[in-house]
């Protein structure tokens, strides 16, 4: 009662400034996340400029430690490939797979969740059975099986991750839709004569965007991890360099030349950490309880 009263008396202009963007910018974890992610994105964008040529080419002596040869600042692996070039180009692959696979999961997950939540009844029941079917198989094993059956390539890896990662998102969107579905906002739209598609896409989806964005940021991180794990197990696309593949390759010489596996491993950690921090910060920023303050 008391807090609500106080909020009711804050002048409107201040509430307007107090939007999700400003609140995100005030979260320290989100700021660190954005900075780290910016760094990884910059690596991906500048890979071709700083390291022209194929990162899979043998360019120097094998087993050069970081700093040994100024032209290979992070050293070379057992085949004489430039580790720095691999990490920069690997960032492109990781981000690409993370983004595209997440986009795919978003389309499936939001679609399934929205229709299940909005229409309810039999549509909901059948869509939720489908979701549960996907949830009974651990997503990583599922993706592994798909990639193993089809040949490993960027397209099959993206497809495998995208097809297996959506169920949790579908449940989230369904829950949000169910909450709003029987509220007065939807009733008011129906009373105006709005079509289902208009209600779903113009009113319900924008109002569930916040939690979707939060979970999307974490899904990108998970997709990067999944791709790395697949590549580590040898199910990466052999024609492109990948952080997970680099770790996998360096694994055999971990005792003697630890840096070959560790450096790309650090890159994975940084990228995943950045996205998780960002997701955390966004989550706090869109938390309705925060809006009260």
């Amino acid at each position, binding site marked *: 009662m008391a807090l609500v009263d106080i909020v009711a008396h804050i002048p*409107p202009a201040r*509430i*307007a400034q107090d939007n999700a963007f400003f609140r995100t910018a005030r979260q320290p974890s989100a700021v660190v996340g954005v900075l780290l992610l910016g760094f990884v994105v910059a690596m991906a964008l500048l890979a071709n400029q700083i390291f022209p040529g194929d990162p899979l080419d043998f360019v120097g002596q094998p087993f050069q430690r970081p700093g040994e040869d100024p032209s290979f600042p992070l050293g070379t692996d057992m085949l004489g490939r430039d580790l720095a070039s691999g990490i920069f180009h690997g960032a492109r692959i990781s981000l690409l797979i993370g983004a595209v696979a997440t986009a795919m999961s978003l389309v499936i997950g939001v679609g399934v969740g929205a229709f299940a939540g909005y229409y309810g009844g039999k549509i909901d029941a059948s869509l939720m059975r489908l979701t549960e079917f996907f949830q009974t198989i651990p997503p990583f094993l599922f993706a592994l099986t798909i990639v193993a059956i089809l040949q490993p390539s960027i397209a099959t890896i993206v497809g495998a991750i995208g097809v297996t990662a959506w169920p949790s998102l579908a449940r989230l969107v369904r829950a949000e839709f169910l909450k709003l579905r029987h*509220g*007065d*906002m939807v*009733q*008011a*739209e*129906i*009373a*105006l*004569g*709005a*079509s289902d598609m*208009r209600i779903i896409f113009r*009113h319900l989806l*924008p*109002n569930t965007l916040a939690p979707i964005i939060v979970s999307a940021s974490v899904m990108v991180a998970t997709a990067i991890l999944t791709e790395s794990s697949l590549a580590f197990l040898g199910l990466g696309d052999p024609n492109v360099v990948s952080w997970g593949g680099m770790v996998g390759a360096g694994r055999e010489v971990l005792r003697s030349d630890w840096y070959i596996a560790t450096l790309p491993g650090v890159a994975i950690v940084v990228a995943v950490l950045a996205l998780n921090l960002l997701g955390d910060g966004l989550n706090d920023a869109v938390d309705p309880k925060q809006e009260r303050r």
Partner: protein
Amino acid sequence: MHQNTQPLVATHIEPLLTVNDLVVRFDSSRGTVHAVDGVSLSIKPGETLGLVGESGCGKSTLGRAIARLVEPQSGSVRLGGVDLTRLTRSGMRPYRRDIQVVFQDPLASLDPRCTVGMLIGEPLRIHGIGDRRQRRDRIADLLSKVGLSADSADRYPHQFSGGQRQRIGIARALALDPRLIILDEPVSALDVSVQAQILNLLVDLQSKLGVAYLFISHDLSVVEYVSDRVAVMYLGRIVETSTREKLWSSPAHPYTRALFDSIPRIDTGDLGRRRHMVQGDLPSAYNPPEGCHFHTRCPRAEEFCAVESPILRTVADSHVAACHFA
């Protein structure tokens, strides 16, 4: 200062809306609720029918069933010869222009991510009325009708006070020039000084536009103020319908009398008045009493009230009540 409250119609004029034996049931794990249990009523063009009752009596459900926001199990809702309950959802769309709804909590019924202009313009866009410029003019016109400044169109609902938000909800309901507006507790969330502003606005709009209202409220004094005729609901059934004057001067149903007696009043000449209170609680809607639903709390109840459901009988001209003793 004074304005005429009598509907400008004679009794022989065709009703705008006729509800006949409407039934709405909800099934849940706890059982079946007859939220609306065979309700009949009619509303004439330009009049206000007040619908009053306590929480859970089904008055909101009845309002929503008339607007086809909940599906009735049986009965009919006729608007100018068309039974709305038989229409498909898309078949219903053109008729939605005639029946609009204003909800209790405008913050819950207005999309927080739309500007007021978008919200008020939405019904026009949905029904393909006018081009962009015409719609903008219409939005400005509607805003001024409900007493909001033209620059409100670019702001968001949360930037307004409760009373102003209800004005937005009313402007949106007026956009399509409806013939009937269902007002579901439109002033219950508002403070009394703001409530007076909204009630005056509703009365002014009605006399200007000739729109009919179904005014749903638990607050008898509000209903008395706005209504031409009043229907009283108890546990899914209408127990009494009459004109405002007759209902207030000579209520026929014991429940109506109990309601009147329960309202705390400012009667400065009559301080310390002790009333006849209704005994007991509202029975569960899952398991309403047999016979007359009110017999468990009724001071006049006799044995056969628990067996026989009273039907609505005429007790005076345009005054019906469902009581064996009325």
